[in-house]
């Protein structure tokens, strides 16, 4: 089975977001989601790097930001998992590489985020707006 066969929409509520924003221009909203994709890819890279080094406070801050921006743009599946990780980090002191639970959760978040990006790009493609996954 190819990777494409595994693509299932995972609940990024872009239409609801557009309605709540009161904006029906797909270009305007598409550019906003483009920023989301780029900013969060950078956040994911930074968090991944920091999880291998000793900077728990920084990791927590970046995860908090990632969670916030995902919630703002109704990327619910990513937000839900980040909420769990955020709460976990607040109640545990992260023991770097040995903390298997946090790392497993982080891997799941990365997979979910990648699928969300694909859904977002597909949504806007159906509406005539091309987004990029790489700068």
């Amino acid at each position, binding site marked *: 089975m190819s*990777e*494409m*066969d595994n*693509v*299932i*929409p995972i609940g990024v*509520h*872009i*239409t*609801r977001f557009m*309605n*709540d*924003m*009161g*904006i029906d221009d*797909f*270009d*305007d*909203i*598409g*550019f*906003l989601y483009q*920023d*989301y994709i780029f*900013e*969060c*890819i950078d956040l*994911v*890279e930074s968090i*991944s790097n920091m999880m291998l080094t000793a900077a728990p406070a920084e990791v927590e*801050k970046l995860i*908090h*930001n990632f*969670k*916030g*921006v995902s*919630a*703002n*743009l109704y990327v619910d599946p990513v*937000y839900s998992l980040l909420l769990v990780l955020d709460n976990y980090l607040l109640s545990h002191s992260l023991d770097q590489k040995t903390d298997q639970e946090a790392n497993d959760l982080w891997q799941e978040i*990365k997979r979910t*985020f*990648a699928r969300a*990006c*694909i*859904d977002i*790009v*597909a*949504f806007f*493609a*159906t*509406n*005539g*707006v*091309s*987004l*990029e*996954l*790489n700068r």
Partner: protein
Amino acid sequence: MLFTGKVVMIVDDSYTIRHQVRLLLSKYDIIVIEAHNKTSMLNHLLYKGQLVDLILMDLGLKETSGFDLMEFLQATPNYKHIPIIVLTGDATKNTVLEAASAFKIEHYAIKPIDPISLSNKVLTVLEKQHFSNHSNMNPEVAERLKTHKKEQLSKDANKSASSDENSKATDPNPNHIEKILKSTLTNPKTEPDSNKPQKDKMHTNIDNINKRLQ
């Protein structure tokens, strides 16, 4: 229009959130200035020789915290009268109370941003400020402007209320998404079947993103 040309500054270290606020307030012809830290905030507090009309301040900034920035603003005579709406992802009572009591903050918005609620707060503060600056305004005109604001907000709220039905009608279904992605990946130059403007070439290379995220 009442809000045309009003200038709002958003101080937040996420450029996506700054973009969202700019987009949200552009509906009301409000100019949004963006800042991500203390330096950029200070560089842009004056817009065309006038102080900004309102600041939306995120408390959880990476460098100097929002609390520190508010402290600085309130200690500076030229800036202390600029109204501030606090944005916070920390919805605990203490955080909000701390901001409210220490900095006389009248409005705050909890993240994630509720677009309708935030618009309402921004318009309310700008309206209050406008009327305090124009206390001699004809009451009839003032009433008309207030009605106009209510109509705008009500229009947004109605639009949002019907969003669930619209979501079902317009969000892509799994098969449709799969088809689009397959066709895009096998033929990246294919134009989408739409009259809408095509801004960039389509590059949905799933391998690339997965490599970056692994």
